[in-house]
């Protein structure tokens, strides 16, 4: 029943033995011990589980692990390395530099409970990869109207997220 699959998660080759239809979220969390993506609704309605697969946002709660084979999976744990590669940072700088989205999330003190924020940062990275200088309206649109569902925050941190996305955008353009 279980298949031996090879995943590439945060740039590292990760063999797993798992049923191929298992949603990616359970493999990331239970087998690879990554706690960034979190289970929310389990049906792609909230965004708490979002990860990047080949640079595009995917909801790990409904994505079968087999879909990720041969593709690059990125969680928030891997964002610093993504940025380091993008900027060509050396090993010592890379080890101490967060992705500008993460740094902006800290500087703007975005998380309240923080449960949804991993998915929010993934959505922000995705947005900034296609629009390096989004307006407030474009940020609202991206976090609300991008399929498959809005990214939901019950604490109500939406304005802090907007502030952080704009801060990160500025840092990434510089």
């Amino acid at each position: 029943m279980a298949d031996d699959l090879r995943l590439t998660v945060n740039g590292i080759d990760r063999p797993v033995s798992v049923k191929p239809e298992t949603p990616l979220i359970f493999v990331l969390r239970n087998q690879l011990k990554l706690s960034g993506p979190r289970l929310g609704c389990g049906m792609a309605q909230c965004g708490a589980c979002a990860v990047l697969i080949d640079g595009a946002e995917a909801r790990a709660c409904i994505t079968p692990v087999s879909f990720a084979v041969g593709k690059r999976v990125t969680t928030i744990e891997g964002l610093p390395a993504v940025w380091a590669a993008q900027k060509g940072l050396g090993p010592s700088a890379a080890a101490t530099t967060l992705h500008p989205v993460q740094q902006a999330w800290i500087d703007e003190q975005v998380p309240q409970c923080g449960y949804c924020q991993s998915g929010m940062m993934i959505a922000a990275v995705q947005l900034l990869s296609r629009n390096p200088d989004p307006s407030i309206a474009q940020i609202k649109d991206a976090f609300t109207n991008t399929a498959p569902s809005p990214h939901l925050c019950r604490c109500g941190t939406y304005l802090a997220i907007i502030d952080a996305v704009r801060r990160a955008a500025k840092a990434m353009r510089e």
Partner: protein
Amino acid sequence: MDTVTLTRRDLLTGSGALFVSLYCAGRLSAGSGRSASTEPAMLASWLEIRSDNTALIRTGRTETGTGMSGYYPQVIAEELRMRPEAISLLMGDTDKTPDGGYSAGFLYGMSNVRKVAAYAYQALLKLAARRLGVDTSALEVVDGVVSGGGRRITYGQLLAGQELDLKIPVRGQPARADPKAWAGIGSLEGFTVLGDPPMKPMREFNIIGTSYPVPGIPDKVTGKTQWSCDVQLPGMLHARLVRPATLGSTLISVGGLDKTLFPTASIVTRGNLVAVVSPDEWEAVIAAQSVAAATRWTEWSGLPASEQLSRALREHDWGPPAHTRGSKAAVLTSLASAAKTVSGSYEQPYVRHAPIGPFVAVADVRGDASVTVWTHSAHSQGLRARLAGMLNVPIEKVVVRWLEHAGQFGRTTLGGDGAEADAVILSQLTGKPVRVQWTLQEDLAWSSVSPGWVSNAAAALDADGQLTAVRNSFYSPHMDDVRPLGALLAGMPSFTPAPGGGVASEWPYDRVGLRWEEAYTMPNLGAGAVSGGLRGNIMRTPGQRQQNFVLESLLNEAAAVARADPIQFRIQHSSQRRLIDILNATAVAARWDSRPSPHPGAHKQGAQTVSGRGVCVVVRQNAYWAGIAVVEVVPQTGAVRVTRFTIGVDCGKIINPRQLQRCMQSGVVMGLSEALKEEVTFDTGKVTSTDWSRYRILTMAEVPEIEVVRISRDDCGFGGGSEAANAVVPGAVAAAFFDATGVWPRRIPLTPDYVTALLRAA
């Protein structure tokens, strides 16, 4: 008289420290028969100041998402004259924290730890005075370095090579199961520090009042935080529950489990608690779905459908009010002799906490009946007491470990209603550690809820348009049923929730007579069900959130009848300076256009957008709030959009301005969600709003521009700044809707269906 004692420990186990511990006057010392070994809460020290010039504060209260884990170090650092970065915090573990108490009570918890720090500071000053050979009055402390008589010494140097115990007097006891107590738990507030140590004057604060970053945020952003959902133990089983077909169904037969498809899964049941467990989480998920499809339950239909809710509440025989305030005779006289009266009946359906992460818990029940539970409950000691009561074991057998998880807005403030009881029962039955993960559908269908309510209000105006009296009668099913679902379904001991509650609203219009009547005499809807039915529970700004919508809406209606500007109308009827100041400051920030409502261009028909503005205030926990909404309404479609919200607060001395701003903005978002969208729906047997497409909450696109106004004062103590922002929103939005349309909405949420029906009928 309670005394503070400083003693030297005989054995040195580290490099030196000062331990600040609790001393329960008249209990331990009087030989109450309760030795320290049976009182785990007595063992853990509250504060440790270490020889490396750092400090550790331990509190049973927890972070609930409002930044408290940053405020505690700020407060401690201020009193101890240390840097907040030098202070670490351990929260919520019952075996490592002494004080207990519910986490929502930050002000209460803070006043305790401030005193703890103040006592410790006095002890450190005495030690330093002796060492430096000068009087304490000649000492100055900056960042943990004591100066005096031309010499300097750090706290760490003062403590090096010795271990000292400072015992400070407290009152109280750990929370314990008490089926006769309100909410089934005695001592919900935990310990209270006694005495009055000298405190640092507010005008000398230099850490409180700064935007110290919340310490846990970097780990949350980089994926290093261990959340309660991350706990994995050797041999642990994952569980998914198979819930009854309705709130009142009982089990007829459990569906079969196909071992060829699910080889490592098994079914575990106790009473009506049915679960599928497996070492593989995904197998537990799909095996539970398979078992659920073939499991048979009895039929039950003990609820009024949600469309019938208001009628059911209005038809209920509520009996005499349980709580009253003010003179009924005086207010009835004013109403009878009024030049004009305004009256209305207000209502709101059920709403719920709706955390983004459904509830999760891990329990490890050992053969010797020792229980360890990992949770994100906001009341660890209360939960410990509840679980011990359920298992009928002494509380010392139960350890609750706290970790962060999704915000839940009061759902576990009273130590109940999560997945913990499920996990404990299943661990006991399987003999293995069990992790129970509720699904979103379960969370939205089976967790406790904030009950719907109706309220009848009337106001009297004299010939000059002055408000002379207000009467309100508020009716709600009760809000204190925090029995764990697992205990109910498994038929294990719990408590009987007693209808209760209180007058939550504060009345700032001291020039107006008030008669308040409140009845919480209705049990849960469907109370006879094995699950308890719709278990009513408190939720953010409990009681006052609902009641304030009524009172402030009535004020706005009265102002309109008096042809008065709603802000000026409020100011006329209050002598409370802080209320008037925050109203004026918020009005300026909102560029308030002073005039009566409705707007001269108000329309209740047509496809053209109309706009309006409205105001609402709330007074709670020594804080004065004002909210001003600007809305746009399309009468034909019933679409209501809030385009701007200005929120002001005077909560006394502001602890952390940036966190306050964030809490105010996010509180407005939650209030808008409630005002515009949220409604629990149910048929006669079960909740039907069980995913995010049917229990709708505000999305980012619906968030307006939110402006924040803050007034900090050094002369009014501390007030609650994190919670009540949500409570000014519905009243302001409803008033703005009236300003735009000329029609009063006396119900929230302002959904398109409700709004089109309301405007059509007007």
